[in-house]
């Protein structure tokens, strides 16, 4: 997916809670790319323009899995704490 597509997707999926602006998005891409988790390539878009597409790499997928698991663990923990509090 290209940059704008990803930003839109995040906005849609989060139902508008997360609006990622380019000032955060592109530096993040640069970092992820440098880490080898993303790969980028120029492709033509649906309406016949060139755009940079970002593809998750195997290394990135692995990292994502790990991070997701860790997030789930922390989120669950926080949820439990909040429940106990109320």
């Amino acid at each position, binding site marked *: 997916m290209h940059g*704008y597509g990803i930003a839109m997707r995040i906005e849609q999926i989060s139902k508008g809670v997360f609006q990622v602006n380019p*000032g955060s998005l592109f*530096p993040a891409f640069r970092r992820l*790319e440098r880490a080898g988790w993303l790969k980028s390539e120029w492709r033509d878009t649906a309406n016949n323009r060139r755009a940079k597409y970002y593809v998750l790499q195997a*290394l990135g997928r692995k990292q994502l899995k790990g991070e997701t698991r860790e997030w789930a663990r922390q989120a669950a923990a926080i949820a439990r704490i909040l429940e106990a509090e109320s």
Partner: protein
Amino acid sequence: MSLLRNLAGGLRGLFFKQQVEREMDEELRGYLDAAVNEKIRRGINREQAVRAARIEMGGAESVKQRVRAASWESLVETLWQDLRFGLRLLRFSPAFAAAAILSLALGIGANTAIFQLLDAIRLRALPVKNAQELTEVRIAERNGATGAFVSRYPNLTNPMWSQIRTQQQALSGVFAWGPTSFNISPGGPVHPVQGLWVSGEFFGVLGLVPERGRLLSPEDDRAECAAPGVVVSHAFWQREYGGDEFIVGRKITIEKHPFAVAGVAPASFYGVEVGRNFDVAVPLCAEPTIRSEFSVLNRRDGWWLTVMGRLKPGWTMEKASAHLRAISPAVFEATLPTEFDAGDAKHFLGYKLGAFPAGTGISGLRETYEDPLWLLLGLGALVLLIASANLANLMLARASAREREMGMRMAVGATRGRLIRQLLAESLLLGLAGALLGAQLAHGLTRLLVASISTDSAPLFVDLAMDWRMLGFTSGITMLTCVLFGLAPALRATRVSPGAVLKSSGRSATSGRARFGLRRVLVVSQIAMSLMLVVGAILFARSLQKLATLDAGFTQNGVLELDLDLTALHLPVDRRAEFKGLVLRRVRAIPGVESAAEAGIVPLSGNGMNRQVLVDRAGRVIEGKSELNEISPKYFATWHTPILAGRDFDDRDTLTSPKVTIVNESFARKYLAGANPVGATLRVKSERKETGLFQIVGLAKNAKLYDLREEYLPTMFMPVTQKEHPEQDETILIRSQASLFGLISVLKSTVQQINRGIDMDFTPFDRMVEVSLQRDRLMAHLSGFFGLLAVLLATVGLYGVIAYMVERRTSEIGIRMALGADRASIVHLVLREASVLLGLGLLIGMALSLAGSRVAATMLFGLKPTDFVTYVLAVASLSAFAALASFLPARRASRLDPMVALRNE
């Protein structure tokens, strides 16, 4: 893996910067387009869609900047930008840049040069494998030894060496060596080269591989010494034989004896004595052949060898020393000189051998020059500090001028760190330029240093190759100075509040003291350090002056020493005196020769001999030591040394006449209570035997003998005409006003007319005096140079601060003048400021100098490190410069037109 990718990506960013930037632009444009299209699709009109999308995205430049900042190459890039920017700024102020670079270069260059020499003579290991194993064996505390000392390092005798070789267990291999000088000329003018006596184990234990042929082995150093070969150094092989391929087997004449060259030592090997390069190495067993009647090989009182070896694995210096101590009684028992009396023998048998690390070689040079060099390094470091302080001051002045620029930049979003980085880049540039120029300077300076401590008879050889220690030192001090003069101004310049700076559009009436404080501190410390250097410079200059003008007891100028070697003439002992007398008469007959005399010992040559004397005084016999010199008549006249009482030697004194002697004032004071010694008698004790009576016939004025620094030594003179066994060499001192060059050529032909087989050598005496003052001259010159540099730097620093102060206080001065202050009071105002700084600096400097100059105490002659005159001179000269530096801005301030000054506001 990911590090590599990061690196590759970064490099791509650096080298294909334009492409990366283009892609980023395109990507952002695409993003914007997509956002706009999306909004249009939702039914917003185009104009509003574009506007909304732009607002959402924020500034394209700031997004790009943030993407760039996400990767490491941006750091490199900003550094590069900073350097370019710094370079541009420096190009705008070439005078500042030149002054800064030059002062740094001088400081760094001088330090580097001195360190390089120190490194070469002190720190570097010998060029042999596992040099750290090398150990020297010598007597731990040997004082009051008697005998013949015939080497620069007369540590042990040959009999001791034989004992140590067979008895010691601590070293896996031992060898003995001794430095000497050989004449390798087959005849005619002497050709002296640096010789080395070596035992057969020398090359083997050092683990050297021959360049050509073979090196000496124990086979070459047998008692019978059948066919001793010699080894030449690589440098000698190149210099004297042009690197001849067939050098092995060629004959070389050493003191008229032919020796075959066995091989060439490797190029990196200069010997085990740091600071000297050997030319020819000869086995010990050949010593009697070469030195003939002066051989000390089998003499138990002939000190000429140094013993070294490799420590056995697992042994420590302490263990080796303990072992050597244990074998000492046996060693000295077996080598006790037979002629010693009970007292001497007891002393001798009490000697203890010890082990001493020798990985950095042996060096007399080190003893003479190590302390002075460390001291000079310290002085050089002070100069560098002053230069740094000066630069810091200049940078501060620039920083204040750029206050508004800094404020502006911080207001538009530059971070403090970024600005500090940029300012530091500027100092880094200056530092690097200074270091590069300094390294160049150091190159020349080192050569100058080496030349100034080298002598004709013992040329200094030091390996001046750049090594890691050297590089580390230079880059280290460069870094240090950069931080010193760069960091403080950078911190200060960026510690501004953007709002405050931008608000104050002009100068305020008076300038706050706080922002000025650092510069005052810098100037005060500069003055303090300069005072230390000036004190040092004046101390050494006065010490040298005292040495050069002291009453040595003889007139130094216009005396030429002529050394003759008569060995080739094979004169029988009873004809030698007559022949020498003939040569002396011929020399005296040369037109232009004022006076000439034979001398056994030439003053300041470092040679000397002493005897035990028994002097009769009022019926008692007083025993003690006295120096001895054997001279011909007219010796005192040649030196312009007055004979205070009695007579000079003359034709009356012959082998058959009563034995006579002349003594000096010191002798008379010590043995005869200062009474007129003429008529008194004495005996000389030599090798336990007492000679007959000598009658004192004259009293000579005191004169220096070994060294200009010494106290006058009790000395007696004996006439050569009463000598029983004249040697086969003759030293004639010639006083003449004629030109040296002409005199030498006339002398050459005169001597050759007498006999063509005589070897000769000439040394102007003032050259010898010069050599004996070499170290003092080096210290005086270098510390003088440093002192001058320091004063200049401090003057510039003070001028800068005072001028800056005047500028900042222009309006205040204007108001004062408008209110009626006259010129004198304005000058007074400025000078008061300067004199406070100066006074404070001098006070601190004085305290530091008094504390620090103690280090120099042993290197000074004739004055204490707390010499009053020196301090007065130093304070006066520094104050004079400071007065000049502050008077100029003061006068400028007093000539201000109040109207102009006030309008400036």
